[in-house]
């Protein structure tokens, strides 16, 4: 009896001691280690490593351990699975806009509305990381991007072409380029996601002719197939294929090859997001100054503007045990020092979403071409995925089929409308 009591006391004491040690640990333990999950794109990893280095130098006592995950759909699953099972890292990088809405931010992410550094974050970014309850749940990482056409400047000079403001001018340029024996348009269906630019990047033009499209589309009132302005993207992709304007290996070429081709002049135009500038910097640095950029032209030269992509966000899951330290890292990312750290590792690819952040003077020409769109009023529109939570998962397969002549534009648009329905139902939107 006494023996048993003694043992119980002993155990209780030991447990108590352990508990005290655990509780008081932060007071004298030097290091808190944060875990940080990013996608495995080399440019993301390089930027993340640089930021960790700079952050750790400024914040002794906090260490950050980097983890990577695949990108694309597999990455979406990893993020959702880890959030749903409470195993998310202390900080993670993930898309803003419709993908952000799909990870149930109200329930899973720490509310960051009250953080002092939010004052420096541009509103255009805050809206794309705002949960349905109106609270802001993320910090910006990376630069805003344009979705348009990268072009080879030497080809334009050699053939005496000028940057097209309307689709007709663009096609006329293509004819001249083809006559000169070069591939007018580069497509890279080996990486299916690259096939979506003609449709997604045309949204400025859709918005210009049907200003209510995004709202009607979300409410199940407007469809791609029945809205002529929205159909244009699919039709243009078909038109380019039928005109025989594509590079010979369009069906298998990869994103890196596309970026290299437009830089070296193997092709004249590459419809792409402007972050590709950093890829060109890695793969063909000597040709970085040969690449310019323009928005996808619409029918009307008078209304020419750019479809814009917001960068990814940094988020803290509710389950993180080091929220205070994690917030410090987010504050760093949303500061001028954070922007500079990113520029140092990844180069300047576009405007940052933090007030006071600047780009170096000698930005590459493609970035220089991008900036004016942001500096004027009414020449940008956010891509559809930032103004509507609905983005169908099969768009990239559909645009590959339309872009390689397997399916007609009208069929493709109708198929995409079906695809979108599942997503809307999954999100439980009213009207579907």
């Amino acid at each position, binding site marked *: 009896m006494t023996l048993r009591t003694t043992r119980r006391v002993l155990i209780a004491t030991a447990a108590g001691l352990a508990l005290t040690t655990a509780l008081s640990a932060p007071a004298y333990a030097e290091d808190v280690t944060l875990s940080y999950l990013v996608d495995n794109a080399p440019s993301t990893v390089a930027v993340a490593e640089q930021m960790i280095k700079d952050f750790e130098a400024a914040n002794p006592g906090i260490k950050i351990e980097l983890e990577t995950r695949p990108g694309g759909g597999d990455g979406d699953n990893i993020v959702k699975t880890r959030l749903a099972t409470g195993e998310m890292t202390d900080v993670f990088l993930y898309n803003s806009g419709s993908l952000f809405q*799909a990870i*149930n931010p109200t329930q899973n992410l720490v509310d960051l509305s009250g953080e002092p550094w939010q004052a420096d974050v541009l509103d255009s970014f805050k809206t794309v990381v705002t949960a349905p309850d109106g609270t802001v749940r993320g910090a910006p990482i990376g630069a805003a991007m344009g979705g348009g056409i990268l072009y080879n400047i030497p080809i334009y000079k050699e053939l005496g072409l000028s940057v097209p403001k309307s689709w007709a001018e663009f096609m006329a340029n293509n004819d001249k380029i083809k006559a000169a024996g070069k591939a007018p348009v580069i497509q890279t269906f080996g990486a299916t996601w690259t096939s979506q630019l003609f449709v997604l990047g045309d949204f400025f033009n859709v918005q210009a002719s049907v200003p209510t499209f995004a709202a009607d589309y979300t409410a199940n009132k407007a469809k791609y197939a029945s809205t002529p302005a929205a159909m244009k993207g699919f039709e243009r992709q078909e038109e380019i294929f039928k005109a025989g304007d594509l590079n*010979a*290996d369009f069906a*298998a070429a990869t994103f890196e090859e596309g970026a290299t081709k437009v830089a070296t002049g193997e092709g004249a135009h590459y419809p792409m997001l402007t972050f590709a500038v950093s890829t060109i910097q890695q793969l063909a640095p000597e040709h970085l100054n040969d690449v310019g950029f323009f928005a996808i032209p619409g029918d009307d030269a008078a209304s020419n503007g750019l479809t814009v992509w917001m960068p990814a966000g940094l988020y803290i899951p509710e389950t993180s045990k080091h929220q205070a330290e994690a917030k410090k890292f987010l504050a760093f990312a949303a500061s001028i020092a954070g922007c500079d750290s990113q520029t140092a590792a990844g180069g300047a690819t576009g405007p940052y979403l933090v007030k006071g952040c600047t780009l170096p003077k000698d930005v590459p020409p493609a970035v220089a071409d991008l900036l004016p769109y942001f500096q004027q009023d009414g020449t940008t529109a956010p891509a559809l995925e930032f103004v509507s939570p609905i983005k169908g*998962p099969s768009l990239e397969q559909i645009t590959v*089929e339309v872009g390689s002549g*397997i399916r007609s534009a009208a069929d493709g648009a109708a198929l995409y409308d079906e695809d979108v329905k599942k997503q809307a139902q999954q999100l439980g939107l009213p009207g579907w």
Partner: protein
Amino acid sequence: MVAEITRDDAPASTRIKPVRSPSPYPSWFYLPAAIIYGVLFLFPTVASLFFSLTRWTLFDATFIGLGNFQQFLKEPFLLQGLVNTLIYAVLTSGLKVVIGLALGVMLTSQIVARGYLRAVIFFPVLVSTVGVGITFTTLMHPTAGAINTTLALVGIHGPGWLTDPHFALISVALVDVWKGVGLAMVIYMAGIVAIPQEFYEAASIDGATGWQKFGSITLPLAMPATITVIILSLIGGLRSFDLIWAMTKGGPGFTSDVIASVIYKQYQAGFYGLSTAGNVVLFVLVAVLIVPLSAFLNRRQVEL
């Protein structure tokens, strides 16, 4: 399977044991496997069946009855995926049987360099599917790939192996055969070696030709090997996913989609309830095909 059970069942259950001794086939032999399988596979799977009746975001689930099954059966590419799955399964298991048997016969004969041939043909079995997929995707590139550049040397304009909708599925199936035929070969070798030599000697005395010996001795007596190869590669073919995903991701567009990749895409897109319903459909489909087939094949084996 079924025939075997009914035949064996009778004596075992009617035998009356005079002395109560522990059964030589104790039930507890099931136990370790049953616990691991039951806890880590069966239980979560059954739990997930509930989710096939819901719209599930991983974060919350809304009950929608049979809506997912309706939706899945309406999938625009389900039918095509089904046809592709069958083509793929039949093509790969057929080729593995034919080539595996031919190689098995060849390598159990007196041919030179048997060790080398066996080693070389078997080795791909050991290599990772993702690695094989990446390598062949590169070799099959329509313009720069080694296959088409070699064909161009002799004046043939090679097709886009993985980018032409007519070829993509077949190309992947051929790579699957490339990777898996070594195992079929070895299974056949085991089966052929086990055939008593006296049969062949007797046939030789009767003046049988090589083909006659093959047709009336090797082929029927290697039946157990054939059954194993067919069942293994048919199941493999029906659930085939890794290699297709590594090489074409179901593309170009949707043209090389199989059922497993259609389901996986739903999963990838975050339609978790829908993909669970798809798994149920796939299970029913494979069961409907495999159970009668294996019963049929086993019956033939018994008759022999």
